[in-house]
């Protein structure tokens, strides 16, 4: 397993070129082309803020102005997370031709799914920081240094989950459909369209078990809320959990590796 992990590192050139291919191919033939990477999150933000400010009145929740920025802090990473999961789960099936016909390290495919969605996330960041600037929300450098750390934790956590999902989806195609619904549930069970403060005490324990809650809260504390970053303990726990998950996921993937070419 360790030698395989090392090989994965050696394949970074291949990962790089496949991610580039993915990004290039995605918008090929469209008028706006690469701009969609910026326009997409912007439109997404408009839709959600319209729904949650105009259609659904939020009542007496304080501390959430401007709501669009609060929402965006959680929504952008969520898009990275959920798209990685649904693409990554399918990655081996979609790339079946490569696994079946070419000698090809299969773990590259889920990695590419996570990385290319991370690039989209990064492309969305200027929009986010543009909003922060527009609403004159103060940013502190001492908090901002945590931002890449949160991203790294999200990356390893997502990758671990995707490894498990990708390997299992080859054998149980049901996961694909199950996952789509599970992600919808997950979306509403994570505090980024509403703040953690409105969650009733009974739900709080459940929220704490949701790993993405801590990511969302971390992003919010760093970017949206004023004051020092107080969620770092949870973040470190999550980092350890994410690393363990990744190793477990990779171990499972490695165990099932030989079956991929036969089952895809």
């Amino acid at each position, binding site marked *: 397993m360790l030698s395989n992990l090392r090989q994965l590192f050696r394949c970074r*050139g*291949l990962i790089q*070129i*496949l991610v580039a*291919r993915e990004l*290039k*191919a995605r918008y*090929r*033939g469209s008028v706006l082309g690469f701009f969609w990477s910026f326009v997409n999150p912007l439109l997404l933000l408009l839709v959600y803020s319209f729904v949650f400010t105009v259609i659904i009145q939020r009542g007496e929740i304080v501390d959430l102005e401007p709501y669009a920025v609060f929402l965006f802090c959680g929504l952008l990473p969520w898009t990275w997370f959920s798209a990685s999961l649904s693409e990554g789960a399918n990655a081996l099936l979609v790339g079946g*031709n*490569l*696994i*079946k*016909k*070419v*000698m*090809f390290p299969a773990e590259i495919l889920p990695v590419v799914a996570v990385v290319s969605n991370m690039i989209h996330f990064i492309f969305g960041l200027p929009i986010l920081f543009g909003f922060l600037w527009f609403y004159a929300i103060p940013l502190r450098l001492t908090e901002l240094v945590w931002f890449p750390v949160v991203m790294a934790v999200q990356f390893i956590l997502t990758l671990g989950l995707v490894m498990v999902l990708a390997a299992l989806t080859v054998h149980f195609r049901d996961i694909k459909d199950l996952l789509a619904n599970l992600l919808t549930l997950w979306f509403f069970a994570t505090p980024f369209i509403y703040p953690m403060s409105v969650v009733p005490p009974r739900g709080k324990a459940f929220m704490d078990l949701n790993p993405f809650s801590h990511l969302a809260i971390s992003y919010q504390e760093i970017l949206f809320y004023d004051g020092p970053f107080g969620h770092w303990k949870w973040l470190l726990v999550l980092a350890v959990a994410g690393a363990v998950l990744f190793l477990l996921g990779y171990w499972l993937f490695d165990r099932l590796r*030989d079956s991929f*070419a*036969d089952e895809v």
Partner: protein
Amino acid sequence: MPAIELDHVTKVYRRHGRRRQFATLKSALLTGSLVKHLRPDESFSALRDVSLTVPKGACYGVIGRNGSGKSTLLKLVAGITKPTSGVVGVTGRVSALIELGAGFHPEISGRENVFINGIMLGLSRREISDRFDEIVEFAELEDVIDAPVKTYSSGMYLRLGFAVAINVNPDILLVDEVLAVGDEGFSLKCLDKFAEFKRRGKTLLLVTHGLSLVERFCDEAVWLEAGQNRTSGDPTRVVQMYLADVEQAEDQHLAAEDAKAQRTPVTQAPPGPMSEPAAEGAASAEPEETADVSEPEAADDDEPPVDMFVAKEGRWGSGAVRIEQVTLEGSRGPAHVFHTGEAMTIRMRINAVHRVDDFAFGVSIFSSDGVCCYGTNTNIEEMESESLEGEGEVVFAIERLDLVEGTYKLDVAVHKRDGFSYDYHRLLYTFRVKSRIKDAGIYRPRHVWRFTDNVRFKKPDDRSDD
């Protein structure tokens, strides 16, 4: 040290097809078959205990029918799948031409795809840059290399895939039926490249249905049959054994067809629109099918020529005389596959319950596109019938069957001299003619070529004329 070594390799695939065969979930639960069926109870051995050794620098051919495990063998050598048991040993860098352009993304340009494909096959970016021009030139795609791959024709796609794979500069090249899909020029180019490979002492593993290629090109060959190594060694010998087996299987297949034909029910009149009862003295309104065999001259009438696919096969007649069995025989007993120039005997067992004195026997041969190659009967050949009673045998012996390669069908009949059928077997018997020489037409006259001394050919082909 051999380049490729397979030691008692077995590859078993599991099938999960059962899962969808539950009648209802309820019945599955009631009978308890749910759990049983969820287990992968069907397995299928693509390769069974195959051992072979490919020495370094050899060109090794793999032949066999569809589904015999050839591609599985390649995948094992390429490392794409792992053997269920046994050991696959490969020494050197492998490039597999299994699916050309497998990693191409249709939306991006040929240029970018070359890089991606090359890196996938194990080249570095720099190596690809160095070889890029060579690759594009080989693929003959200089003009369109910057267009998205989806705009390529399938031939262009293929050429580009081949060009990349061959330029990986492997020690071992695995080729799976690549030549079958390209055009003539491309195939020749591939062959040149393979020859160059051989010269440079690299190892080639070639899976193909092109048997002549194996004979010409390979140093050794293996014949896989149902996942097992039937025989291996000298390519010519392996190919000949394989061909003999294919012929035998064809023969059995045709024999089974004939057995079915022998059971064809007898009708009183020919089938189809011309089914008015062929009463005695109906010579003026002879059914079309009857006319063709008993009197080939009748084809001059305004009747359209018989098309084998229009003319229905079948059997009809009054039954006063019956053809009870028809056997085709070659030089070595009953056969359905013959070689051009071989002898063929058509043996008919007949039976007339009551004495008849007006009768004629006829035989005709049709090619698969419905052309009557030959038709005759005893009446045409001016044999006057006298009497026939009881069981007997009629033999139609052809000394040399000088037909070109193809599938042929046979009519046999016994009828009155005016055409009224006693027992008419229409296109019920099939035989195949094989020949190494792929000449055109229907009939191969016995012939020799003669030349003056200044007309020279390269070393005469030592293959015998069948």
